[in-house]
């Protein structure tokens, strides 16, 4: 296992190292600067924009930008809903998979349109090839591009001085897809292909097992989807078992590449910030704060999982390789814990092991990533969420130095606080109210195990499963604690609504906030100005995130994972 620790450290270092040039490239793309890639994708981009009739030179103010974002996403949502429902009658359906039931189709369309990829179905049996390609993979590109566009609009607002426009959403969306996501996915898909991930239009194959039985082995357009699933913080796997499935994640190399892909774009977005606002130190500060939130969670998860489950030795189960229940033997406890924390911190949601089987505190570390939702975070939106925390921290810190608070020379006033509050309030609202409704429904129903039947092990762990489901939906993460029977109208509708609101409220409010800041004049720095790039402010920001997160979620943490942990036999 000690080699695994080294591997985790190395993977993080490589991810950070790669994210720096990628961040610079992203910044160049969105600042409209020439890059070496122009000759390859320039014509394609121009073609798409001409085809869609977008005037690339027209800037949009925040309202127009947000409207374009919402309208384009709404169109994609409707299309997804239609195809999921009708897939049984559509081509590219070699396995004759039937159309989705309405609440499941609603949930799944919402899930993929919001970059969540919460799956209340299993890919092998739930989606046709057409749905996987035209809907799922397409949306995995477009939603990541949407998030990246939103982040860039916010950054432009921060960099602007008396600026009324934040860029053009359509141009940003196409640029993100064509210049960033497509080429990077292509590289990763090719690596995965080389490692044995299938890529075929054929349906499942049958194989005879040694016992003489027959096994159906699902295949499909897997490699292309896994690449964007990892890169675009999507997380929705081709197969139900996600990256624990040997076709999605065949080898140690594929596991390394996929682990790095989870972190790459969320990290690169932060470096792009430094270029766009022309303050490298601010990017370093934000990155360091995120890393300082990420590493402790990682440490908790890794030590908990590697330490093994304390109840197991009493059952005579060897725990020397860590807590191995629900984990792939190929990955081991440490690499699974690393993936689990990365995938929740970044709002990715892909898994390479069963999160439901994590030790209580390992599960808590994963959930904490969902609750804070700003540790690198989803492509683009991770920074946008952190931006809201920055506004709050700047406000308090600014007052403490005796000035009207300002960030990057922009004054933070009542209007900004209102918008930041709206964005900040929504996340705990969705999680706490959602979990409260589910818990209450369960406890108020007579014989819930028979009638509701969504929890198989009530008690603190069952509570954690429900809490995780809403946390995952609200963070647009998409991973599941599973163990929860979630393909019911209750869960399909509630989490579907949460996913949609939790995607767009925290994007539109910060866009409005950035629009408001952009219009203000930039106040020049002086010795009396709060330096947003300083270590002191970094500590302040870190403390604000930790304390607010703690205050919002400690009671549910106590009722779920902490109660479960404290109930374990001690002396492990």
């Amino acid at each position: 296992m000690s080699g695994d620790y080294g591997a985790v450290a190395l993977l993080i270092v490589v991810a950070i190292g790669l994210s720096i040039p990628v961040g610079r490239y992203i910044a160049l793309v969105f600042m409209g600067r020439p890059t070496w890639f122009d000759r390859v994708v320039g014509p394609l981009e121009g073609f798409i924009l001409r085809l869609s009739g977008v005037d690339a030179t027209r800037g949009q103010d925040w309202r127009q930008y947000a409207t374009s974002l919402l309208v384009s996403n709404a169109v994609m949502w409707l299309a997804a809903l239609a195809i999921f429902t009708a897939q049984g009658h559509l081509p590219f359906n070699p396995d004759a998979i039937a159309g989705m039931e309405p609440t499941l189709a609603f949930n799944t369309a919402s899930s993929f349109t919001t970059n969540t990829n919460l799956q209340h179905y299993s890919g092998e049996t739930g989606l046709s090839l057409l749905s996987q390609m035209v809907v799922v993979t397409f949306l995995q590109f477009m939603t990541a591009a949407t998030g990246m566009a939103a982040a860039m609009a916010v950054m432009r607002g921060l960099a602007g001085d008396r600026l009324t426009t934040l860029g053009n959403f359509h141009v940003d969306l196409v640029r993100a897809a064509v210049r960033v996501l497509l080429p990077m996915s292509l590289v990763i898909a090719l690596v995965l292909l080389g490692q044995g991930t299938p890529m075929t239009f054929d349906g499942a194959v049958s194989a005879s097992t040694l016992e003489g039985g027959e096994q159906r082995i699902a295949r499909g357009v897997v490699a292309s989807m896994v690449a964007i699933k990892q890169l675009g913080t999507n997380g929705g796997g081709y197969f139900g078992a996600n990256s624990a499935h040997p076709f999605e994640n065949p080898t140690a190399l594929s596991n390394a590449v996929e682990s790095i892909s989870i972190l790459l774009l969320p990290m690169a977005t932060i470096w792009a910030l430094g270029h766009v606002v022309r303050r490298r130190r601010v990017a370093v500060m934000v990155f360091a704060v995120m890393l300082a939130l990420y590493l402790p969670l990682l440490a908790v998860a890794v030590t908990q999982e590697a330490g093994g489950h304390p109840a197991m030795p009493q059952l005579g189960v060897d725990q020397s390789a860590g807590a191995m229940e629900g984990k792939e033997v190929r990955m081991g406890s440490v690499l699974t814990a690393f993936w689990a924390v990365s995938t929740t911190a970044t709002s990715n949601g892909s898994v390479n092991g069963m999160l439901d089987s994590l030790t209580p505190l390992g599960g808590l570390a994963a959930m904490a990533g969902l609750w804070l939702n700003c540790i690198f975070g989803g492509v683009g939106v991770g920074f946008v969420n952190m931006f809201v925390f920055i506004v709050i921290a700047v406000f308090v810190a600014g007052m403490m130095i005796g000035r009207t608070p300002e960030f990057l020379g922009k004054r933070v006033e009542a209007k900004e606080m209102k918008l930041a509050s709206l964005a900040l309030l929504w996340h705990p609202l969705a999680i706490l109210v959602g979990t409260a409704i589910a818990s209450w429904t369960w406890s108020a129903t007579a014989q819930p195990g028979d009638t509701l039947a969504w929890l198989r092990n009530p008690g603190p762990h069952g509570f954690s499963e429900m809490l995780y489901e809403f946390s995952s939906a609200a963070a647009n993460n998409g991973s599941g604690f599973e163990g929860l029977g979630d393909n019911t109208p209750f869960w399909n509708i509630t989490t579907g609504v949460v996913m949609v609101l939790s995607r767009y409220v925290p994007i539109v409010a910060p866009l409005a906030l950035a629009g408001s800041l952009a219009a203000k004049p930039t106040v020049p720095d002086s010795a009396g100005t709060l330096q947003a790039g300083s270590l002191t402010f970094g500590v302040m920001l870190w403390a604000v995130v930790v304390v607010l997160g703690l205050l919002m979620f400690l009671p549910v943490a106590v009722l779920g994972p902490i109660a479960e942990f404290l109930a374990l036999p001690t002396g492990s």
Partner: protein
Amino acid sequence: MSMPRTTLRDRAVVRQAVVDAWRKLDPRVQVRNPVMFVVEAGSLLTTAVFAVELVSSTGDPAFSGHVAFWLWFTLLFANFAEAMAEGRGKAQADALRRTRTETTANRLAGDGQTACVPASTLRRGDLVVVVAGEWIPADGEVIEGIASVDESAITGESAPVIRESGGDRSAVTGGTRVLSDRIIVRVTSDPGQSFLDRMIALVEGAERQKTPNELALGILLALLTLVFLLVVATIPPLAAYAGAEVPIPVLVALLVCLIPTTIGALVSAIGIAGMNRLVQCNVLAMSGRAVEAAGDVHTLLLDKTGTITLGNRQAAEFIPLPGVSGEELADAAQLASLADETPEGRSIVVLAKARHGLRGRDLTGLAPVFVPFSAHTRMSGVDVAGREIRKGATDAVLAYVISRGGSPPQDLRAVVERVARSGGTPLVVAEGPRALGVIHLKDVIKDGMRSRFESLRAMGIRTVMVTGDNPLTAAAIAREAGVDDFLAEATPEDKMALIRREQAEGKLVAMTGDGTNDAPALAQADVGVAMNSGTTAAKEAGNMVDLDSNPTKLVEVVEIGKQLLMTRGALTTFSIANDVAKYFAIVPAMFLLAFPQLAVLNVMGLATPRSAILSAVIFNALVIVALIPLALKGVAYRPLGAAALLRRNMLVYGLGGTILPFLGIKAVDLLLAAAGLA
């Protein structure tokens, strides 16, 4: 200082504040502050639960009663803090009101007749005649005559001041008294709008509107309140899943402990107290917004004369030319200045005495002929006992020397230039055809200005000296005073252009001024402090008036503005940091029945779940009282850079605010256990 200072020990104010604290329990008052309104709603709910439990003998009425009791006190303490701040303002207002006696005025009618009318009937534009011994009935402008006026009621300065028509000393204030002569005043304010009225309204807090920063802070506090309302409201259904039932008083206790009551209770007291500090400094701000803007100022424009330097130049050195003794030069200079009553002239006589022991002489028997200074000749002097002595501007005196048959000495140019370059003004002294030497007149920089500018620089504020001097002189004085920049040969238009330029870069500019020609710049500046001795135009253009007419006061105004924001920031941080400990007290206690294993989270080792919850509530209430003095006085202010200030305040109020309640709650718990209440 004319303003009475009141302290916490001032019995009358405290007594009134205690009464007001109860009166402010009115929900219509509380609703203006969402945080405290939630506390009031929680107090009512808990009291109702207590009553029901008492009547029906269910639940735990002793506990509910205790919680309700302390919740009401939380509210009362918050009200007390606000009432104290208001009370101190009222005490100041009463002191001002005492100076305003109902007077009569001699209103001048169109036909030149005067009629005796009550001062309260005067309208803007009326003309009144005021003679020696009478009170000036209203704010106004002298349009005819000159008088000495006792303004001590307003400024606290006992020396009378001169007010005359025209120019920059024409404004008079109602409630001040004419000591000599007769003036005609045009009234510039309607009844109830005079300077004194506005000042009283301001210190009483009657016209208090929330400032932009208060509004933004209010939103942050509302956000936190909503978040915690959400956290607490979802606990019953979540706990129901675990089979735990959480009593309403416990939920209310948790809510009140979590919402930012500390800052919520003190925020209006901080605002009122900040205004009061300004008034104590004899500065009257037209709005709280101006005070906040003062804390943000990037650039200070300071007039050289009277602000950075003492009003007048003073002779600093006699520089004799070769072949002339110092004594000879001093003697001639003294003779030429004996009749010169200007401060410069007097300083020459003083220097001659100090350096060369020359005493003033009686020239009456010698029939001296004094030649006064004129703008045309640009020199002055004396003809006495056959000697013709002149002093004045270099060119003028040289022309005089040549006209008397002398020749300009070789070294004179060099000496003159050296003096000019050092920021001084050279005065050349000549006797007949012979130039004797140069008197170095120097601007004297006020004591302590250099260190003040240094502390301003540390705060990130740039000081710009504005002067009519030539660039050479200005540069030298700027260097000596330690200002960052200067504007030489400045006209009012230049000043205006400078302000606009700074503002175009996004900077906030503060300035002082008194003349009518300062008015446009005062209006343009973000913080314009008008001198009380200045014209009405200047006072109306600015957003603050300094009753002492002391231009350096601007620095204190900036400090008060910063201190106001820092106090708000520090207490907000403290309030949020406190929550961590309260969580550790209440959350394990709340779920202990359902999950006995949560006992390990009771890190403070609190005696019982009941006492854990009570201790947190009691601590939460007491900390408000403990912080009232800090809210009224403001946090300690030091002129440090932003990073150092933030580090300091984060350590004290952030880290301190996290640790202190662990100790405080434990202490209360020990007391409760000792009292048998645990």
